[in-house]
């Protein structure tokens, strides 16, 4: 075939096609990746002139001893555990129902997906209003069934649940679409075979649907976990530029933002980013290892 072996000429051409992308990604992706790992070891840094006068591990020891950072890690984990499983269960249930109906299926999908395209900041203002302790819609509706008003956004106990509920609501549509793709790809012959073998609906679900859906479930889980680890916009907007009452919604990225943007402690902020990276890497590797055993491709 033509052009199979790279030549000097084809190499120059290939790199020329890559050039625009390379210039941007090297400047704003590759270089900063290296730089942020280095920065986490800067202990004396003048960022105006980009001069480093001391290196060391003290940024990491600072994080190790900072109760705020511990809180941020804990809150992030609570958020991930609160959002991901519930989101998957609800979106899978809705996808299963949608998959069984024809009439209005498109309209339902449109509605469930709508929050995904809306600005997090704008819709968080709406939720902020819905959560209002005196005039909020949610407390009114809960009042109808006899629940006492909850101070959703000012009570440290309730701030995280409020954040989790809003995040699940916003993320459902994305997972529903992916689960629908997965369900569509399951060959109906498997169900016919299961039916002949006398499997009831529940058995069909556990023995046919779940195993054949496992690659999508895996994808949705990994996506969801990574996304949830990086939560920021939702918090900033829902709690009006704070990390919630008594920092009850302080997460790792929020911590990074505060150290960097309001306290100008670049080294510590970079170190918290490095910790975030390794946490995500670690959790993703565990999921990969688990999927080797339990995902059926």
């Amino acid at each position, binding site marked *: 075939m033509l052009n199979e072996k790279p030549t000097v000429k084809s190499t120059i051409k290939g790199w020329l096609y890559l050039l625009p*992308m390379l210039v941007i990604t090297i400047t704003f992706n*590759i270089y900063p990746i290296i730089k942020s790992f280095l920065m986490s070891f800067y202990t004396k840094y003048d960022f105006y002139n980009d001069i480093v006068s001391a290196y060391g591990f003290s940024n990491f020891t600072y994080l190790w001893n900072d109760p705020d950072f511990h809180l941020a890690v804990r809150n992030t984990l609570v958020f991930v555990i609160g959002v991901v499983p519930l989101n998957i269960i609800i979106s899978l249930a809705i996808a299963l129902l949608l998959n069984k109906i024809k009439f209005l299926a498109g309209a339902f999908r449109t509605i469930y997906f709508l929050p995904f395209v809306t600005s997090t900041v704008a819709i968080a203002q709406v939720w902020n209003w819905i959560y209002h302790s005196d*005039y909020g819609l949610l407390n009114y509706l809960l009042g109808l069934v006899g629940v006492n008003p909850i101070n959703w956004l000012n009570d440290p106990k309730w701030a995280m649940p409020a954040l989790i509920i809003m995040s699940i609501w916003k993320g459902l549509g994305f997972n529903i679409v992916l689960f629908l793709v997965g369900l569509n790809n399951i060959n109906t012959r498997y169900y016919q075979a299961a039916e002949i073998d006398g499997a009831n609906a529940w058995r069909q679900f556990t023995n046919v649907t779940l195993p054949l859906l496992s690659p*999508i479930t895996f994808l949705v889980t990994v996506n969801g976990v990574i996304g949830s680890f990086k939560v920021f916009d939702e918090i900033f907007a829902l709690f009006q530029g704070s990390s919630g009452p008594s920092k009850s919604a302080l997460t790792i990225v929020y911590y990074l933002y505060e150290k960097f943007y309001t306290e100008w402690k670049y080294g510590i902020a970079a170190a918290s980013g490095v910790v975030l990276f390794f946490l995500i890497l670690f959790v993703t590797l565990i999921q990969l290892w688990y999927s080797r055993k339990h995902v059926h491709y």
Partner: protein
Amino acid sequence: MKKAASVLRYVILTLGALIMILPFFWMLSTSLKTQPETVQIPPVWIPKQLQWGNYVEAFKAAPFARYFVNSVIVTTVTTVGQLFTSILAAFAFSKLHFWGRNLVFMIFLGTMMIPGEMLIIPNFVTLSNMHLVNTYGALILPWLASFFTVFTLRQTFNSVPDQTYYAAKIDGASDWRFLWHILVPMSKSTITAVTVLQVIGSWNAFMWPLIVTNDENMRTLPVGLQAFTTDAGTNYALLMAASTFVIIPMVIVYIFLQKYIIAGISNSGLKG
């Protein structure tokens, strides 16, 4: 039995859909209320007289026109620029043979593991050294390339058989011509999908614009809206009106291009 199950399905799905739609309804409803109506208990579902004036008042209460123009500029330039760099790179990765191709591809694949939030600090330093903070440059430059887009386009370009490429070359078409006159039109639906997803992403982006703009004139809509919450205080009718006009453009995009958005997301699912 079958009938009952079907009815039950519709009941559950309808209840779920009501929960999904309720915040949007509540936003619109509140945005059209008088101030006393917003705090009335039991709540007013549909205001007696629709207060369209709230929209005018909210729009004037902060430089929303300016924010809107900023958002349009940033979204357009980012999307077009990113599409251009990505199409070129995806073509090189998919159809050209050259030294270093696989190595570069693997390196970029690896960088997709890095959380973007980590890059904010060094990128801010780079841009402030270039004196670009508070300019369109800072809002746009870092987003002019996306390896995710390159990756998606390469998959689509790969599905176009190499024979098409060789046939075009034999007919005397240059690579450039082949790319823009044959390959790109053949991949129209994927390109539309990544474009729409990119438009939505840019329009709604918050953390980066928040960090690189402290000049009011450079704010994009989401950042401007966030700043407006302090001015609006407890005037929820105005705040909801402002939220509505941040949300509406993407809802319109969604309604018209839903097919492509869903296809784009479904594709990313199939690859995983």
